[in-house]
């Protein structure tokens, strides 16, 4: 289980998180929605330790996320970045099996390549993609490679940062379905941040609405449409009228 308690983070005068609290039960898929610049990515990076919160606590399975063996902590996570964040200098298979080629999880190169090809197949890519470089792939293929990398070491917790941004509706649907299938199949705990309501409906067990640096509403995805929360209703309808200012 992931638990954030009263987390604050500011960049200069910009108070991004102002007491965010959230619980993600083990084995469930939580989707955080909210407008641009509301701190969704910051929250995710705080959990991973990429950004240090100014105050507040973050627990993973009841343990303080900032303490203990950092490598062991990060080995439990997989992450799909917004722009895929593939390493340009490495071919696709080495990107996917990055963890298996170095460090404590190091395996022989042939084995790591086999795993990479298996994971590429899992995300719908053929084995001939393995030897290409990221710059030779389309945006959708890069996202799938990023997804393959996120699941390569079979993590317990997977984070998805805007998984469908910049993709056409069909490719977005493919990625959403893949994420749902993989999360269910692996029994992983998932946290996704997105603006895309079709992603929310496809991926989420639970939804949290982040606005003004705090969680305004959270609940099961089935209750989202009838939440009665003006922030959630405005976000779903995409209306310029409501408590969320259109000009921010």
């Amino acid at each position, binding site marked *: 289980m992931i638990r954030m308690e009263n987390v604050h983070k500011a960049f200069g005068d910009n108070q991004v998180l102002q007491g965010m609290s959230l619980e993600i039960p083990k084995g469930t898929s939580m989707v955080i929605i909210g407008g641009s610049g509301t701190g969704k990515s910051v929250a995710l990076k705080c959990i991973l330790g990429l950004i240090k919160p100014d105050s507040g606590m973050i627990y993973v399975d009841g343990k303080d996320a900032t303490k203990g063996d950092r*490598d062991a902590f990060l080995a439990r996570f997989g992450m799909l970045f917004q722009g895929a964040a*593939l390493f340009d200098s490495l071919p696709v298979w080495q990107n996917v099996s990055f963890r298996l080629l*170095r460090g404590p999880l190091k395996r022989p190169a042939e084995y790591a390549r086999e795993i990479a090809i298996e994971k590429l197949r899992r995300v719908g890519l053929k084995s001939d993609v393995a030897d290409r470089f990221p710059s030779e792939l389309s945006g959708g293929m890069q996202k799938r490679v990023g997804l393959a990398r996120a699941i390569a070491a079979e993590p317990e917790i997977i984070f998805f940062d805007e998984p469908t941004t910049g993709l056409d509706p069909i490719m977005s649907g493919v990625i959403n379905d893949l994420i749902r299938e993989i999360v269910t199949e692996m029994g992983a705990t998932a946290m996704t941040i997105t603006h895309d309501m079709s992603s929310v409906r496809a991926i989420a067990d639970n939804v949290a609405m982040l606005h003004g640096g705090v969680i305004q509403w959270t609940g099961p995805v089935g209750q989202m449409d009838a939440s009665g929360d003006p922030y959630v209703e405005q976000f779903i309808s995409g209306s310029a009228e409501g408590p969320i200012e259109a000009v921010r």
Partner: protein
Amino acid sequence: MNPLAALGGLGRAVLSLLATFGKVGIFAADAISHIFRPPFYPREFFVALMNVGWLSLPVVGLTAIFTGGALALQIYAGGARFNAEAVVPQIVAIGMVRELGPVLVGLMIAARVTSSIAAEIATMKVTEQIDALVTLSTHPMKYLTVPRVLAALITVPMLVGIGDIIGIAGGYVVATENLGFNAATYLQNTVNFLETKDIVSSLVKGAAFGLIAAIMGCYYGMNSGRGAQGVGRATKSSVESAAIMILAANFILTGVFFSV
């Protein structure tokens, strides 16, 4: 303009400069300490060796040969004013080995390697590749900085040595083909005139300049701002800082080796 405001501005600029020196110093100490601590990344080190050393050879060789040739012409023409044309081999040798070889190689490495390291790492930063490294349990300092710093520390002295030899060869070709020097005498004078200290100072300068070039590239890359402008600014600042620090270090090291 209000003199107090001007003084305040000057103070802020000095403080900012000192803060940057401090940050670079801490970064360099951290990078050097990581050289001795596992995990090590031999593949990345080998790639860095190729990029910093092997692929810099053409530019270093061309710079050195033209500089050596021009130096021979200058010394011959200048020496003729007081009947000292015969000192061409000695001055070319001492000029290349003590000063021009290390400084020109250092500046070429700053232009070629520092800029490339800063642009590559800054691009990795703005495209979240550095964050991705961290989530894959890989320390960016160990994976990105250490291989480049170590490669520069090892290969730049070698490049300086090669540059010294090629520069002297450039002077030799010009002197023997255009200025009428006897080939054997030229070589004899060159070898006899150089001292061990000249060569050691050249190689030590090479190591120092290599360290500066790699550290500045990595530091500005890792601390780049956002977007294309951030990458551009990081690249520009890294080359400017590396070039200035190389020239300053050259002055200090020359003082250490040759002060009377």
